[in-house]
């Protein structure tokens, strides 16, 4: 058995992966307005990555997924989250200075550019969760070759 699925699955995956990705990106970007947020959106996008891994097989995924890049991106997500939390350190850790003092993300509540650091944090968490979950599942898939 090859490591990839048949033609039907591949075609369906090609069609649905972008949709899943876009929906996940929507959930991440509207995290401060609707139910959901960084973790849920990131997990949704990671679903697209896992679908890619299952449908196209491990060998194809190996050429597309760079492990070092993913773990570096995971670190970047965490760092952005931390820096967003540190912006208001003059008052307190996690003080939402962008929302109180501007200059960006301080619009009318309920609009996209509001809620201070929350959109930034959602994006960072989304990146971290996506890269982390894909790396975890990818690492588990690599385990299949334990009998040498």
């Amino acid at each position: 058995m090859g490591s990839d699925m048949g033609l039907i699955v591949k075609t369906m995956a090609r069609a649905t992966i972008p949709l899943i990705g876009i929906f996940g990106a929507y959930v991440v970007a509207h995290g401060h307005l609707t139910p959901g947020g960084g973790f849920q959106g990131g997990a949704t996008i990671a679903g697209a990555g896992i679908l890619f891994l299952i449908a196209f097989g491990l060998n194809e995924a190996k050429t597309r997924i760079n492990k070092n890049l993913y773990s570096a991106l995971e670190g970047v997500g965490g760092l952005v989250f931390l820096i967003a939390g540190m912006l208001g350190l003059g008052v307190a850790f996690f003080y939402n200075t962008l929302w109180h003092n501007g200059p960006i993300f301080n619009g009318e509540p309920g609009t996209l550019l509001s809620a201070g650091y929350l959109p930034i944090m959602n994006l960072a968490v989304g990146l971290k969760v996506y890269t982390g979950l894909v790396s975890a599942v990818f690492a588990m898939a690599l385990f299949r070759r334990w009998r040498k």
Partner: protein
Amino acid sequence: MTLPFLIIIPLFGAFSMPIISLFGKKLKEYWALIISGATLGVAAKIFYTVWKTNEIILYTLGSESPIGKGVKFPIRIVWEVDLLGALLALTITFVGFLAVLYSLGYMKHDTGLEKYYTLILILELGMLGIVITGDIFNFYVFLEIMSIASYALVAFRNDTWEGIEAGIKYMFVGSVASSFILLGIALLYGQYGTLTMSYLSLKIAENPTIVAKVALAFFIGGLLFKSGAVPVHMWLADAHPAAPSSISAMLSGLVIKAGGVYAVARIVFSIFNPGLHAYLKAFNMPSINMEAVGWVIVFFACLTLLIGNAMAVVQTDMKRLFAFSSVGQIGYILLGIGIGTLAYGSRAGELALAGAIYHIVNHALIKALLFFVAGAVIHEVGTKNLNELSGLARKMPMTTLAFIIGAAAIIGLPPLNGFASKWIIYESSAMYNPILAAIAVVGTVFSLAAYTRVLFTFLGRESEKVKSAKEPEMSMLIPMLILVVAIVVMGLLPWQINDKIMLPTARMLEQLNGEYMVALLKFLGGA
């Protein structure tokens, strides 16, 4: 305000580790060293501040005041650092720094080191979070961060069956214990509608229902699991020997303290204050019977210190012996906390708490030293079986010296630091109930037997395996020597340390005037 940097610095180090490791092979090790050193500096500053002013630091996340707009109760996450938290933070960062330094030489031959250093920083972060937090759900989150990092570190060498089996056992037991703690938090939240520890203690005193008692039972049960008290200590004896030695030092020295006995002390004294409930009882108001809780802790403590030390005698594996000895020493600490609960407000209770806190610090240093010694022996000789290790003293004199100091200190010989803390625990338990003191002394006798055996092995006739052994490299020797110096110096000034640091810490934990609550109530105004 330096307090948030205690969390920010290790978090920054952990997140930047994958990026740093792309730039160079040796860079990540020095990066971990710099980060843990900086954390040590911050912790020392915080400890000095709290000790000097003798006041609880209350830090609110996200705002100036923990009180919500237009309401009269705290809605934000607070960090509340008293002397006990600051002292433990200092100990954690000190031993953590030495463990990272030790890893430079010890983990040289392993792969995947950037993950190792990330996990070790996250482990440190989780413990620091536990000791500074004043919010009970925040406590759970940090507890889980610590636990997950330590499960992963126990199973770090996943090409050996030892690490995997120990990791699986540790993980299942630890996860169930965490679930118990979460259930306790859920029950308390459902009953009282708040998560801030100091406000929760007020709410519980106002209306102590059966739900609070059930939640307390879940907390004590889960935390005894986590600290490795006797009926549930088997995971500890498997997990601590199977981990790499630098990690064993952190697990035995710090994790079972920060995530176990420290949390027991915090929950018993800061959320369910024995004094408050004794006061309520005196006026015939509904209260929680904290004396029963104290006896439960004392019962498990006696069981733990007897069985833990007795099991240590029959081990042939050096690291397993040290792990069982850790179980025994946890018994002493729990005994101190239990007597502190029972004899709340009296001289005996204060002394017992001071002894328990002193022993937490001492045991962290001593057990770290002993596991470093075990690691050096494994690194140089390649075995930890005591029957094959005789005659190390001639080949590795410095390591043997470090071992002798550590063993003497953990048994409690007079010029070393273990003596002072054990003496205070014996003295206070004799003041409360002489039978408890007798049990504690019996435990020490077992401990003496166990360590004497290892000592004779080290000094005995040279065996085949030891012939080619030599001293470990400098990066492994230096942490051991630093710990030896710390143990000897702390041993030379025992009563000064006790009077200047440990007794104020015990008083602040006991909070006879409700300092822990007052720190929060200041923000409400008037109260």
